[in-house]
């Protein structure tokens, strides 16, 4: 457990969170949100919460992203903000 890696992931989490909200394309937002979830899952497995990380990897980064992509595909990618 290196604190440098820990800190880097924490920073990246914030960056992806902001990016997924700023990007002007909903599909991009969905993918960035998947990246956010995956980094979060990494963070939790570093903290030793293996079950939570496993669930987040399958639910948050996996199925949630698929739902987002499916919903964006059925509606539109356009967003003003």
């Amino acid at each position, binding site marked *: 457990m290196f604190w440098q890696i820990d800190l880097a992931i924490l920073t990246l989490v914030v960056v992806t969170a902001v990016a*997924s*909200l700023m990007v002007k394309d909903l599909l991009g937002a969905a993918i960035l949100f998947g990246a956010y979830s995956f980094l979060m899952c990494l963070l939790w497995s570093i*903290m030793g919460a293996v079950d*939570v990380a496993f669930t*987040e990897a399958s639910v948050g980064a996996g199925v949630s992203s698929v*739902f*987002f992509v*499916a919903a964006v595909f059925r509606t539109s990618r356009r967003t003003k903000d």
Partner: protein
Amino acid sequence: MAELIPTIIAKYNYWIYITLMMIGLYAMIAKNNLVKKIVGMNIFQTAIILYYVSIGVKKGATIPISTGGHGAVHEAVHAADYLNPLPHVLMLTAIVVGVATLGVALALCLRIYSRYNTLEEDEILAQIRKK
């Protein structure tokens, strides 16, 4: 200032969780696009999960699975060796609740889109007002 830096470093997980939570909250209040709001909502929820997982961390402890395996029923287990499993259990529930809310929210978005043909809140409100 000198004593502030150790405080910041000692609890940086907590500061990051607050930052993420505020990012999510701001997105939910201020964003105009309905799907963006849902992304914000999910960030908001994961921030709370991050907070709970941070509670469970213990210095010098390993993951909460007994190293002895099935055969080790009679070996003594020292609580200090393992992480606190309770927050992990609570957060499994919270993650599942999160994905359930996400599914319902997206279904509602689809319904709204099929009616108004847009996902921008101001355009929808303009359409409602026009009638």
